[in-house]
């Protein structure tokens, strides 16, 4: 382990693994509370406010109730797969945090040289858990939900990875910590289009907001977890919010400069948390604002709108890097004045084209 600067590898491993588990569980609680409270002002209501002041203990009450509810396994279920699916769904979420730098160089393995590649590879795994759940329940609606999630994942993984490529091009590294270190100017300023594509694709990836087709209750009842109750359902709930947390953390790292901010040698972790919360707020905002997409619209939007835009974004960023890029990564600050109008023009033009018929999907299109 000569690449490891901190001497005892296993001690570090144990401490940080524990810390990450605690962090994820706590933050999921906070996120559930934050989301339900944030829904309040958006929908002109109060939100949970009885469980304690500001409803702060609401997720605790939910946890107590859900964990102690009866566990039902359908008679026709594939017992083992049904049992193991929630774990398979939740594990990748925890694994993502292994490479997230919480502070300058602090984390489980924040300077893993293939950091972001690892994130992409791992986060795609959670779909296996979801599909296992959908298939093993022995219920047609859950199977439909599982099928939908695979289609959605495959199509939105592509723009997600392409927008990450533009970040990697500018930062000149795959390591999460070095990507943060390269952000003198946060990348969401340098590449607004890349950030937008990443955010939308991430929303689809974590099956939230307008993209929660896999549990569309007006179409397929409760989707893949229709037959799950009690603790296993709690695992899925945990995985859903944990994935949102993970994607917010990745977005904060890639586009908002992670732990960077004034005084980051002391309060870098707080900056990181603040940015995570900000991005999660954007996700909530999208979720309350937009209605759920239709399946064919979802695929059309993914392949005919996001994918070409992501390609063009990579092209633009690559060209800029060839012409004005600096050797050690990074771009001059005035690139903002090119990229912002370019993003607006591209989005406008492509949405016109999309509306004009390019985006039409149907039997006789």
């Amino acid at each position, binding site marked *: 382990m000569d690449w490891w600067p901190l001497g005892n590898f296993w001690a570090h491993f144990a401490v940080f693994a524990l810390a990450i588990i605690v962090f994820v569980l706590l933050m999921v609680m906070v996120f559930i509370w934050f989301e*339900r409270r944030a*829904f*309040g002002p958006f*929908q*002109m*209501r*109060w*939100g*949970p*406010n*009885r*469980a304690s002041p500001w*409803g702060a*203990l*609401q997720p*605790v*009450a*939910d*946890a*107590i*109730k*859900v964990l*102690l*509810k*009866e*566990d*039902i396994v359908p008679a026709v279920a594939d017992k083992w797969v049904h049992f193991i699916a929630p774990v398979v769904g939740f594990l990748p979420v925890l694994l993502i945090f292994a490479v997230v730098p919480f502070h300058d160089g602090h984390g489980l393995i924040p300077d893993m040289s293939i950091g972001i590649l690892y994130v992409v590879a791992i986060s795609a795994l959670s779909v296996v858990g979801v599909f296992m759940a959908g298939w093993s329940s022995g219920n047609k609606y859950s199977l439909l939900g599982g099928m939908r999630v695979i289609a959605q994942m495959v199509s939105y993984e592509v723009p997600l990875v392409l927008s990450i490529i533009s970040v990697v091009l500018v930062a000149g590294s795959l390591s999460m910590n070095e990507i943060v270190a390269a952000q003198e100017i946060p990348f969401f300023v340098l590449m607004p289009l890349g950030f937008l594509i990443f955010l939308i694709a991430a929303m689809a990836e974590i099956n939230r907001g307008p993209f929660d087709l896999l549990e569309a*209750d007006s179409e397929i*009842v*409760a989707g893949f*977890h*229709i*037959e*799950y*109750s*009690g603790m296993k*359902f709690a695992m899925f709930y945990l995985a859903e919010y944990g994935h949102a947390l993970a994607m917010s953390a990745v977005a904060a790292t890639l586009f908002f400069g992670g732990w960077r901010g004034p005084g980051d040698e002391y309060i870098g972790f707080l900056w990181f948390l603040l940015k995570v919360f900000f991005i999660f707020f954007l996700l909530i905002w999208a979720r309350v604002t937009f209605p759920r997409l239709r399946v064919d619209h979802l695929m059309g939007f993914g392949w005919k709108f996001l994918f070409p835009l992501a390609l063009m974004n990579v092209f633009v960023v690559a060209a800029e890097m060839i012409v004005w890029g600096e050797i050690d990564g990074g771009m001059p600050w005035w690139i903002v004045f090119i990229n912002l109008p370019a993003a607006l023009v591209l989005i406008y033009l492509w949405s016109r084209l999309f509306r004009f018929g390019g985006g039409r999907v149907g039997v006789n299109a």
Partner: protein
Amino acid sequence: MSSIAKVLNWGRHYSTWPFGSGLACCAMEMVATASSRFDITRFGMDVFRASPRQADLFIVSGTLTWKMAPAVKMLYDQMAEPKWVIAMGACAISGGTFAHSYSVVPGVNRIIPVDVYVPGCPPRPEALIYGVMMLHKKIDKRKFRQQD
């Protein structure tokens, strides 16, 4: 033992997720209860579960016909313990206007056990919220022996 029961009751009190199902006109009042004006979210009940497996509270809202009765019974059976039932509206309580009809179940308590009855035709959302608070009182009184 009683302190454990207290914790359990506290959790169930503040997180009684209703089951998103409606039978007849009363269901509209149930929907209104969930909307922002009456805001059932305050009690932590904003999670209207679509699947009976994950719901705790079955609000039987509306006229129950004999034809629908097996479905309602099955939905109730599919819910995981512990579970509660609110009979909402005159029809669910006793058949209401249709009590003497050949096709209407005269009260859902013929089919499934009911915890709280909310009278009215239809009950106003305030009445349903009052019924929910009565149910909360009932949940708070559960002894440890009664916990499932």
